[in-house]
């Protein structure tokens, strides 16, 4: 296992200075409850406004099971590994993608492709982990998922009361995920089952609005009296959550897909993925920092082509529509969009017309905040069996995502006085893809 600290770089000395400095000053507060961020975030309205202005968002679309790069971002038509699908030109001269993505091809000039990905991990769980964490899993070193990292680092300090880390799931939902590691539950994902609002966000029927208002006032009075005796970062953070809760309840419609106009429902389609993309647009528009949508399932060991025909057909429309909408609504430049999977699929076609797990040479698609438009980075050989140019891995991608939203990916979190690096200190961003 690699160590969690910035091994072998100057970051040590830097981190150390901050760290010691921290101990002298706010470090003590951090020790007290690690809520310094919360406290000062809303004690300084000026700073809050400034941050809100530069608010960045992140959308991750997770293609469950292992999307075939050959049937999507890196087609090899007319070769023994290419399969039956042809490639089509896109809005970016010279860039071709699979014919299964005609609508996406039309918005390609907003997006960029990374075709030199080699993550050397063919296990579903481990592959998904390293793509979402930027590092390999290691029992002794539990680290937060990208959503938690983004929710923490991009937190909008105007406190809109909405959770910053949302995963849209097909059903159920409402609960808090366990994906924030040392960043703490505040940044753990809230899952929204098909647009149900978060758990407990609905006032009980037997409690009228004015009754609630009345008891909330009694609560505030009680707090005032107590806080005059003792006020700390913790008390501030706690009382603040009740104001957040009220604001969230007011904004419950943010999670209510039925509030979107009929024609948009039509444009996105009636199936789950279409509706989830529309919900993602709604959430991002309402200032939610990180939204993750999943599309299932691409683990096509059997009839890879039939299944990709169906699944890509479902993906293409809503995805292209979402990209275009984000552009049209002026959100795209501040929203990092990532289409990832746990790995790609084998160039070799098996006897079941299937493709198996393949992490040696595959692709992801990125766009929006901080990344180039219409770029293609990295190259695989004629049959797509190897990366021959611009090879990168999950560590580089994670650094790149952070850099794209304006963070210094070599920086560290201060976790109770311990500096913990945002991304694998042994890796670095892909400069060429950054805008």
């Amino acid at each position: 296992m690699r160590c969690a600290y910035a091994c072998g770089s100057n970051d040590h000395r830097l981190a150390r200075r901050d760290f010691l400095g921290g101990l002298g000053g706010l470090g003590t507060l951090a020790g007290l409850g690690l809520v310094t961020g919360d406290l000062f975030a809303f004690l300084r309205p000026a700073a809050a406004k400034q941050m809100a202005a530069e608010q960045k968002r992140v959308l991750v679309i997770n293609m469950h099971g292992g999307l075939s790069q050959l049937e999507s971002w890196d087609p090899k038509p007319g070769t023994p590994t290419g399969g039956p699908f042809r490639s089509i030109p896109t809005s970016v001269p010279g860039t071709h993608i699979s014919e299964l993505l005609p609508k996406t091809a039309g918005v390609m000039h907003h997006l960029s492709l990374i075709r030199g990905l080699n993550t050397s991990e063919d296990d579903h769980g481990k592959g998904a982990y390293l793509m979402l964490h930027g590092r390999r899993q290691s029992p002794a070193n539990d680290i937060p998922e990208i959503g938690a990292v983004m929710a923490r680092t991009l937190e909008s300090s105007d406190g809109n009361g909405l959770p910053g880390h949302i995963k849209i799931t097909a059903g159920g939902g409402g609960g808090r995920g366990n994906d924030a590691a040392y960043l703490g539950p505040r940044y753990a994902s809230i899952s929204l089952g098909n647009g149900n609002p978060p758990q407990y966000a609905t006032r009980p029927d037997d409690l009228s609005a004015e009754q609630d208002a009345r008891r909330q006032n009694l609560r505030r009075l009680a707090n005032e009296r107590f806080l005059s005796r003792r006020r700390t970062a913790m008390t501030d953070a706690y009382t603040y959550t009740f104001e957040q809760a009220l604001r969230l309840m007011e904004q419950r419609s943010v999670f209510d897909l039925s509030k979107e106009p009929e024609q948009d429902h039509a444009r996105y389609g009636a199936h789950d993925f279409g509706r989830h993309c529309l919900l993602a647009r709604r959430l991002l528009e309402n200032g939610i920092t990180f939204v993750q949508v999943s599309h299932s399932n691409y683990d096509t060991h059997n009839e890879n082509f039939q299944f990709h025909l169906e699944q890509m057909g479902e993906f293409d429309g809503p995805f292209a529509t979402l990209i275009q909408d984000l552009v049209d609504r002026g959100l795209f430049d501040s929203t990092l969009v990532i289409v990832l999977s746990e790995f790609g699929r084998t160039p070799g076609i098996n006897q079941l017309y299937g493709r198996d797990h393949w992490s040696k040479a595959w692709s992801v698609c990125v766009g929006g905040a901080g990344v180039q438009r219409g770029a293609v980075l990295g190259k695989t050989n004629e049959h797509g069996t190897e990366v021959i140019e611009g090879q990168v891995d999950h560590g580089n991608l994670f650094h790149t995502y952070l850099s794209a939203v304006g963070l210094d990916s070599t920086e560290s979190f201060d976790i109770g006085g311990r500096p913990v690096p945002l991304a694998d200190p042994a890796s670095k961003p892909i400069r060429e893809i950054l805008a």
Partner: protein
Amino acid sequence: MQTENPAIDAKLVHVAEQWPHDHPLISCRFDPTGRFLFACSEDSTIQRWELAGKTRTPFAGHASWPRDVAFTPSGETMISCGYDDSLIWWETASPEPKPVRVVKAHERWIDGVAVSPDGRFVASAGSDRAVRLWNIADGSPIREFTGHAKHVYSLLFHPSGEFLLSGDLGGQVHQWEIATGKCARTIDATGLWSYNGGQAVDYGGVRSMAWNADATQLVCSGLREASNPLGAVNDPFILRFSWDKGEKLRGHVVADVKGVAWNAAFHPLGFLVACSGGSGGGWLLFWNADDDQAFHKFQLPNTARGMSLHPDGIQVATAHHDRHARISRLVAKPA
């Protein structure tokens, strides 16, 4: 099984010949005269073998994988369909075959092609869910049959020439009136389809259809028990319907074979032949009309992807992933 012709006995089935190609094969058909075997290949060609001389001739013209071929009753003209959204007309016996006519018939995939009994029309269907009728003489569009909700896999004309049947991924078999384009009825073959919630995928469908000798019965081939669609865990399955009522008569199954029944055909002697391919390898399967269980199964050297029954009732051709077409014979091995 008992037959009047003692020479033919499904239980005697054996692989008599295997013809190599340099790419995996997808499907195969004998021409009506029984002179040639045609096989679609992953190299986007159609390969023609002359049974007599076993000479192999490539038909190059499709821009992607060809999926299937159909012949005019005389066998003079062959029409192929492919994943390049095109129908291509060919001279079946041409020494140097070239596309005679190319028609962009659909968007993306064409899975089904069939020629009307009178040889005037060719029908096509595919992933755009459309079923279309074309004039064989000039390739002009005649009619479109709309109503499928899912990818259409297979086509079959009624011998009377009045109706066209089309079967889709969802297990819906629509019966279209050629004359009016109306959907006369829909036969429910949804037993061949399933939706897997965990994997969020539709799977199965009507992979092929066939008539019995007097067209009183229809069979639809495919799969069932798809516990893991993405992992090819499913059993071959054939549904038998009565034509007059469109009712399900029987579901034909076989023990201990995992796969898909890609094609099914009635042998002139009345028993049912199908090929199965998939995670369980390649098989030739045989059923009597009155039994659910197959009375014989024969394992082929490699997974099978397509099957065709020779007019002589003795030879059965199969197309394989291991780059071979194979001829099996339903008679005793020569001593």
